[in-house]
Structures are given as C-alpha cells and as structure tokens.
C-alpha cells in the first residue's frame, strides 16, 4: 500500500516533467520560455528529492538542491539578464509549426515508452517508468534544439535534455554523488561558455539567430 503511494507520487512527478517539456515546446517568447524552464528544473528538483526520500539516499538531496539552486534559480536569472542585455526580449521566435512539433513530441513520448518498456522487462517497475519518462524528456529536449533557431532557446533545449539525464540517473539506484556534481558543474561551465559565445556572436553579427551564422559561412537555407 505504502509502496504504491510512493510509486504514484514518483510517477506523477516524472510525468509532470514530461508535461512541462511539452509546455516548453510551444513557448515562442523568450521570457516565457525561461520561466517554463525554471519550472522544469523545479519539478526535477522535486522529483529527485522524492527519489531521495523513497530510496533513503541522502546524497540525492544534494542533487535536488543543486538542481533547484543552479537550474531553477541561477541559470534562469542569468538567462533573463542575458536576454535583457542582448535586447531580444521582445523578439518572437520563428518556430517550426507548433502543431506539428507537438504531434512529433507525442510521437517521441510514445516511442520512448515502447522502447523502454520493451528493453527493461525485468527491471523494477519504478525504475522502468522513470527511465521511460526520462527518455521522453531527453528526446523532447533534442526536438526543441532541432526546431529552434535562437541560440538562447537552443541553450534551454540543451539544459532540459540534461534534466532528462538527471531524472534517469536518479531513478536508477546507486549513482554516485561525484558524478552528479561533476555533471552539474559541466553544465554550468557549458552554460558560461555558451553565454560568452552568445555575446561574441551578438557583437559580430548583431543577432543571435543561428541562421545568420549559416549565411556567414556562405550557405544559407
């Protein structure tokens, strides 16, 4: 009985993460996108904390705090400031047709379910569901990177993909804390590097639209 309750809550939180990923897919304004990303990281932190509780693994609380601190607060605030300084907060991003993207996203989630449920028949039910959701989040993050043109939203797509990885890692028992911390730091460093590049790109080309980079290389679409 108690186990069922634990399972249901974990299931709900992981499902919530997938739902927030969908929310991100159809945001076409950058501020809204960043806010939804903060929500994404918040739900991840909740999910990780719940896993820490039911697996009785205190080091996962550290992971949850890192997720909350860095991803839900530091990075969104920093992204806000970047967008402000770049002066692109009013831009409406040209996204590939939202309806099609959403349908594709649904297809990806279905694919993730099918794959995961097929390949892990012997695993623990909780881990299975968790892995399936994690793969969905990962694929949706990739889908976002593919369909967006703006460099900021690509960064956000990348970060949400990484959230999926953390969800998978915490669902599987026994991931060492060192790995978590190093992943968190590498994401932070990637964020800093990408941030610097954004400004450099902006200085050079007056835009952060990736298409400008392509046309600078001599092959525009």
């Amino acid at each position: 009985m108690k186990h069922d309750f634990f399972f249901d809550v974990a299931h709900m939180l992981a499902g919530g993460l997938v739902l927030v990923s969908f929310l991100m897919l159809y945001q076409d304004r950058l501020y809204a996108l960043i806010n939804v990303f903060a929500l994404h990281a918040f739900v991840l932190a909740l999910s990780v904390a719940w896993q820490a509780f039911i697996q009785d693994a205190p080091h996962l609380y550290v992971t949850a705090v890192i997720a909350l601190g860095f991803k839900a607060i530091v990075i969104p605030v920093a992204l806000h400031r970047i967008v402000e300084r770049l002066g692109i907060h009013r831009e409406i991003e040209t996204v590939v047709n939202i309806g099609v993207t959403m349908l594709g996203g649904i297809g990806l989630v279905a694919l993730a379910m099918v794959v995961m449920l097929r390949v892990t028949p012997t695993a623990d039910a909780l881990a299975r569901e968790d892995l399936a959701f994690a793969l969905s989040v990962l694929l949706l993050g990739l889908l976002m990177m593919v369909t967006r043109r703006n460099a900021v939203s690509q960064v956000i797509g990348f970060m949400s993909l990484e959230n999926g990885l953390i969800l998978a890692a915490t669902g599987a028992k026994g991931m060492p804390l060192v790995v978590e911390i190093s992943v968190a730091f590498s994401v932070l460093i990637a964020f800093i590097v990408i941030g610097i590049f954004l400004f450099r790109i902006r200085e050079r080309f007056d835009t952060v639209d990736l298409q400008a980079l392509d046309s600078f290389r001599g092959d525009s679409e």
Partner: protein
Amino acid sequence: MTIVASLWCVGAFLGLSIVAVACARLSAASAIVYAGCLIASTVGLSAGLEHLIAASAPPQTLQLPLGLPWLGANFRVDMLSAFFLLVVNLGGAAASLFALGYGQHEQAPHRVLPFFAAFLAGMNLVVLADDAFAFLLSWEFMSLASWALVMAHDREPENLQAGYIYLLMASFGTVALLLAFGLLAGPGGSYAFADLRSHPPSDQVAAAVLALALIGTGSKAGLVPLHVWLPLAHPAAPSHVSALMSGVMTKVAVYAFVRIVFSFLGPPESWWCVPVLVAGGSSAVLGVLYALNQGDLKKLLAYSTIDNIGIIFIGLGLALAFQANDLGQAAALAMTAALLHVFNHSLFKSLLFFGAGAVLGATGERDFERLGGLIHTMPVTAFLFLVASVAICALPPLNGFVSEWLTFQAVLISPQLPQWGLRFLVPAIGALLALAAALAAACFVKAFGFAFLGRARSEAAKQARETDAFSVAGMFCLAGLCAFAGILPGFIIDRIAPVTQLLLDSRLPVQADVPWLSIIPISQSRSSYNGLLVFVFILISSLGAIEAIHRLASRRVRRAPAWDCGFPDAAPSTQYSAGSFVQPLRRVYGTLIFLARETVRMPAPGDTAPASFRVDIQDLAWRFIYTPIVSSVNIVADRLNYLQYMTIRRYLALVFSALIFLLIVLASWP
C-alpha cells in the same frame, strides 16, 4: 622445453631490435644485429627441429601475463607450429647469414636493422600464438614490421606506392581474419585456441569462416586476385628482406590457413575444397604467366612466389577433398606434399632472392636488358642461382621435384573421390598444375639465361665482381639443403608425418623403412621415387658425356668470332633479349590474360626518327576488381562530402533522426 626456448628467441629478437635502434649509426651495428639474429634463429630452428624429431612429444603450452587481463597471452607448440617454426627460423638464419655480408652495402641501416629483428620476432609469434588476440596482434606486428622494411628506401616513388598498397591489403586481410575469429568464438565464446579446437562451429558459420580465412590469409600469401600488393612490395624491400617476405612470410600465411581450416572447423564438407582448389590453380598459372612477362629480376621472383603459393594451396585443397571423403591416406599425401612444398619453396625462393640481391649489389641492375654474362664475373653466384632455378623448375634430383611429384600423386588418386564434380575438377586442376610447372621452367630459363649467360648488356654488368664470403656462405647453406631435400626426401617426409597425424589423423608410411632410400607415398606397385638413384644416374651420365666429348671430339682448336651470323661486329644489344624470349608465350596467352598490346612504330623511309616497339601489359585484377572498387569509393566519398558542409541545425537534425531511427529499430526488433 621448445616453447620456452622459442619465446626466449622472440625476446632476443625484440631486444636486438631495441639495440639496433640504439646503435644504428655505429658502423658495427649491422654486424652485431645480424649475428644476433643468426644465433637466435639457429636456437629457434633447433628448438623446432627438436620438437619435430621427438615425434610423440606432447604439445607444450605457456601463458604469459600480457595482453588482455582475463585472457593473458597464450602460446603453444604442437607439431604444426614446430614445423613452421623450423621453416621461419631456417629462413631467418639464412637471411641473417647472407645479410652479414650483404647488409654492409646498405645505405640506411638504421631504417632496416630494427625492423628486420622485429619482423623475425613477429613471424615467430604468429606461429606460437594460442589465442586469437595474441595471434592477431602478432600478425599485425609482422605486417607492420615488413611494411616498414618495404618503406626502407622511401626516396623512390615506386616504393611509396608499394608501401601504401601493401598497408591497405594487409589491413583488409587482418579485418577478414578478425571476422573469422569473431565468428569462430561465437557470441559468448572465448578466444583461446583450446576452446576453438574443442567447439567446431555449425555448418553455415564454418563456411563463412572458410571464406574469410581464404581471403585473410590469401591476401597475405598472394592468392590471385588478392596478390596485387605482393609483386610491388616484395621487390621494394632490401633483397634479404625480400627473401624473408617471399620465402617465409607467405608461409606464415599458409600456417594461418592450415591452423584455422584444419584445426578449428571440424570435419570438412566435400565442397570446401572447391574454392581452395580454384584459387590455387588460378594462382599457379596466372602467377607464373605474370612472372614470365616481367623484365625485372626481383619482380619475376615475386610473381613466381604467387605461382608456388598456388601449388601449396592446390595441395591443401586436395587434402580437404580427401579428408571430407574419409580417404585419410590420400589426405595425408596431399597435406605432406603441400607442407613439403612450403619447406622447399622457403629454401629455393630465399636462395633466388639472395642471388638477385648479389646481382643487384654487384651491378646495381635488376633489369634483364641490362644484365647478362655474369657467369664469367660471378661464377659462384651463378652456380648457386642455377641450383635454385633447377629446384624451382621441379627438375630432379632437387627438392622442387619431390613436392610437385607428390602433389601429382595426390591428383592421380582423385578417381577414388565419390563426387562427380570433384572427379572432373581435380584433373583439371592437375592440368593447370602441369601447365604452371612447364611455364615455370620457361620462366627460370629466362631468369638464369638472361641474367647470367650471353654477353654483358651494360657496363655495370661487365664490371661486376663476385659477392662477399658471408653472402656466398648463406647461399651455399640453402643450396645444400635444396640438394639434401631432393636427394633424401624420405627424411623430411618422416618429419612431416606427425604434423599430418595431428591435423588429419593419418600419415604416410614411414619412409625410413623403405630400402635404398626410396620414397613410396602409397604403395610400391603404384609409384616410387629414389632421389639418390636419379642423382647418381645424372652424375654418371653427365660425367660420361663430358668424358665422351673430350675423348672423342676433335682436339683441333678452332677460333671463330662469336655470334658471327652475318653480324661480324655485333654489339651486345643485338643478342636475343629477354623480351623476345617470352614473345611466343605472350602471343599465346597474353592477348586474353594480360590484354597485351604490341605497338610497332616504324618511321617512313627517309625519316631519321628511331623505330620503336612497345608492349603494354595489364594485370586483369587491377582492371576488373581494384579499379572499379577505387572509383566507386571515390564516387561515394564525393556524395558524402556534402555532409561536411551542413548548417548547425541540420547536423543536430541528422543526429536526432539517427537517434530516432535507432530507437525505432530497437522498438520493432523481434
């Protein structure tokens, strides 16, 4: 313990290789390294011989804590390895002895010495290896060391190209062997040869392994059409290395084929012999035909190696055919013939390359049209080269005859085979073998005749000096062994018997028991050969002929200008040339097999331009196999080049779609 001694030899070779790197610039370096190699090879040789002579000696194994942690490096000496240890180290010892003298001429010893020792180590290790990992590692080590030796004289653009093609073909062959071992080991299998021996694969897997083994070892041994690198690479190396590559390394490839097919695949199917026989037969004929048309002495020898490898593979194919039909005695005969030819070819091909090296060292020429008359200036080399030529032409009483005669004996048993297809195929292969033997005789008449007889065709050939004592000693040892193996073949056949016992569970009758030192492969009523008798007969009849000529001929001395057939003042270039010698054969076979075209340009009367004659010869394998492969690779590469210039988002989309595709495959996998 044979195995301990052999591994110490390998260690000595590797040590010598390091010493060679350290002191390559010293003038004594080549003497030190070659003397060291000579000693180590002799020790390895006696270790192999000792194991082979103790006919009932059990296999010896040894595991070294090297390589993969859960596997280690396994080594083992059984009768087959011992026989090939003997072949490898005999060739190594002869080459080292020869190089003690010949290596002094080397301009860049630091590019040859380290790799020479490493090459010997690699060949020994391949023969000793007892797990697939150690085997493939040693195989690649051997390939790379020999590649470095091919590239020793890298100033010549020809050598660069030869090295490149060799490297490509060597990696291709290794990939095939890697797949073969992967299939043999199976999904959960182990790579130790002991496990491969005890678990023969299923029929389909065995067929695939046979094909891969034929490709992988055939590309190293030089089976047509995988031979293209061989005539480029073997002559490019220094001559004592060419001798090792042609005489010994190709035999290591034969070892690999025998090991995989006869030890790991279980009882053969009757059709397995067909690809082996066809590859062997076509290599034998095409190899010698290509050899005939070469104008370069070392290239001729390299192509002739392809011919001899073909003969060996014919023997192996016959052994497979008989073994599949439970004709144990006949299988043992065919296997003995093949292994004896392995031994013989390593002797006379090394000797021929040494002779070519001595000629090259004395004249700097490899082209027949610039040699000639060397029998006057280099009589010892000429005699030894003649011995090897007679041996490789399979003329009695030398050793080449014995192995080819045994192969023919095996061909003649083929009516006992139950399959009609094989009853037709084997005599056809026998006919190819006979054709190859006849053409080989023509080929070596050309090689000896135009290099050593006639008058010197160039200033360099006229001023040649006899080669040094060490080289002559090295060649004498091999020539002596050729004569020994030809006159007393029974001794060597008895040494091969335990090998066939191990591989085929049957052996030829003990030849030492046969009176008068004859050899009887099957039964007295069928056939027998006595090398000693033939030798004595040839000796007596030629002495008698000489005596008769000297006694009966007129004693009056007559002097007349040589070659005075209407050209009283003939220049050496008016002699019959090597190109004209082979023209009839080229006319017969050339238009089809080589796409040979002869172009005569005759200036009009009054025009002072010289007339010219040109022959264009192509290798069919290049034209119909390799050129299409190269051009299709280029076309595909051009198409894929587009991938280098995509936008960032497209790259992402490509990765994304690849991921989705793989996930869908995973989801729909049954």
